[in-house]
């Protein structure tokens, strides 16, 4: 997969900007605040129909402008696709591929897979379990369309069931038949979500170990485990057994929406790291594992987006990483940095492998 070019109109701080890319490594160099990360974000948007950083679509429109437009020309296995997304202030965005608008944005997810390595990845370790579930959901959504469908359905049924529990706790009728109908659907989609997440995590484990050895230059044993009450007890049983407590709490207390990943280093569960360098190499290895997991499920390379990480890792690790990225295991890569030396020092400008864009 190859992103030939991108055109940003009123996307974040870019009023009007066109960029054409090389097939391998593309580096955006510029001082902070000039908008290099926003270009990375625009590529993420083209790939997944949304910004990596903004929580609402409206935030993507340049301040003072009344609309934004993104155009991307992508080539996948000999076929050319033009992605166009437009959004007006106060309206819903539209998103089309070769002039055909998507009715559901989720239908685009997985067609142009992408992995982002960003400075805020630390939340995968230090954040709540929701961050770790999101990591698995993101990975699976891009490789398994049925997973995404089941996850969406599970969450919708869960919201309805919680609303029913709430009404039951507030004097509403205890409608056993209605509750059973939600339970049946939650079990059906929840067990599917659980099974697929668990499988994905176990597939990610050896990939992670491999990249962790390469990036961290350490020899510690790493492992993952999927923490879920479904490991021991079927969901149907848990939904039934704790009903009085669930009514009192007005929420469903068991199910994959409560699951977590335990990252293990040796025998201890990771909560924090000794050094920032250690943490960075752990997170980079995790994202590279995600990249290769997706690569294995698609017959082409995802986009790899790397936002400003080189000045956070030491010289030896960054040398190692640049060597790795320039190897044959990787496809098209987009990197932002404040200082091009981080990259040119490792590869030399004459390698012909990468292009430098100075922003602005």
């Amino acid at each position, binding site marked *: 997969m190859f992103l030939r070019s991108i055109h940003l109109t009123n996307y974040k701080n870019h009023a009007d900007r066109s960029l054409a890319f090389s097939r391998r490594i593309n580096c955006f160099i510029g001082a902070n605040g000039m908008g290099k990360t926003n270009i990375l974000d625009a590529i993420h948007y083209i790939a997944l129909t949304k910004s990596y950083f903004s929580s609402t679509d409206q935030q993507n429109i340049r301040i003072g402008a009344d609309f934004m437009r993104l155009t991307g020309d992508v080539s996948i296995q000999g076929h050319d696709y033009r992605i166009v997304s437009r959004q007006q202030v106060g309206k819903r965005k539209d998103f089309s591929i070769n002039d055909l608008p998507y009715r559901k944005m989720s239908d685009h997810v997985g067609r142009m897979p992408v992995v982002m390595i960003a400075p805020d990845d630390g939340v995968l370790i230090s954040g709540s379990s929701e961050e770790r579930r999101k990591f698995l959901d993101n990975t699976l959504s891009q490789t398994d369309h049925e997973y995404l469908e089941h996850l969406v*359905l599970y969450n919708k049924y869960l919201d*309805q069931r919680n609303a029913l529990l709430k009404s039951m706790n507030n004097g509403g009728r205890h409608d056993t038949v209605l509750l059973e109908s*939600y339970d049946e659907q939650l079990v059906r989609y929840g067990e599917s979500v659980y099974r697929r997440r668990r499988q994905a995590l176990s597939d990610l484990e050896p990939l992670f170990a491999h990249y962790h050895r390469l990036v961290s230059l350490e020899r510690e044993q790493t492992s993952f485990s999927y923490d879920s009450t479904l490991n021991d007890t079927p969901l149907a049983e848990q939904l039934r057994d704790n009903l009085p407590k669930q009514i009192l709490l007005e929420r469903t207390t068991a199910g994959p929406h409560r699951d977590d990943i335990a990252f293990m280093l040796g025998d201890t569960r990771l909560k924090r790291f000794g050094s920032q360098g250690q943490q960075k190499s752990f997170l980079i290895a995790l994202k590279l594992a995600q990249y290769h997991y997706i690569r294995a499920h698609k017959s082409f390379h995802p986009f790899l987006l790397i936002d400003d990480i080189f000045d956070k890792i030491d010289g030896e690790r960054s040398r190692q990483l640049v060597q790795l990225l320039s190897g044959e295991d990787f496809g098209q890569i987009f990197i932002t940095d404040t200082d091009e030396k981080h990259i040119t020092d490792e590869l030399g400008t004459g390698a012909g492998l990468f292009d430098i864009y100075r922003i602005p």
Partner: protein
Amino acid sequence: MKYSSKLIADAVSEFQKLPGIGEKTALRLVLHLLKQDKQKVAYFSEAVNRMRSEIKFCTRCQNVSDHELCDICGNNMRDQTQICLVESIRDIIAIENTNTYRGTYHVIGGVISPIDGVGPDQLNIPGLLERVQAGGIKEVIMALSPTIEGDTTIFYISRKLKDYDVQITSIARGVSFGGELEYTDELTLGRSIATRLPYENASIKSS
């Protein structure tokens, strides 16, 4: 907007309460009526007024009707052993326009959605159960939205009907565009009524 007449302002504000009507459109409609003969406008408001105050709902199926029983429930040429379950009167209009269905209807008035405060008790489900209990019904056709709320409602009603000797079927789901029956084109809707499938919970898949 500022109006020099409170009468105009009141009329505009009433039109604006209609679905899909903004203030500009409301003003255009009001100014249009202002140009008409007084008599014409009187007919207009009387038609609207009588529609609301004199309309009856069929005591059997809750369809709109001028009599106690609607033209469909009261028509012996229609197959009175078949009930097509719909959310609203609009769905009846849509299905009738296909000219493919010869049975009767039952309007339940929505779908089960606790988030929106709609439980089985807020819907006309008891009326349906009474009709089935009274006997003579061979088939109940579920023609509800292909949403999780529609699926839940179908599941719920089919559970309530499981002890009766009545066949439960569902129109082909996922045919509707925009999630509502009324937006489906007539041909597709007609075909999906004609080729309805026996309902089994496991075979229903929402999108």
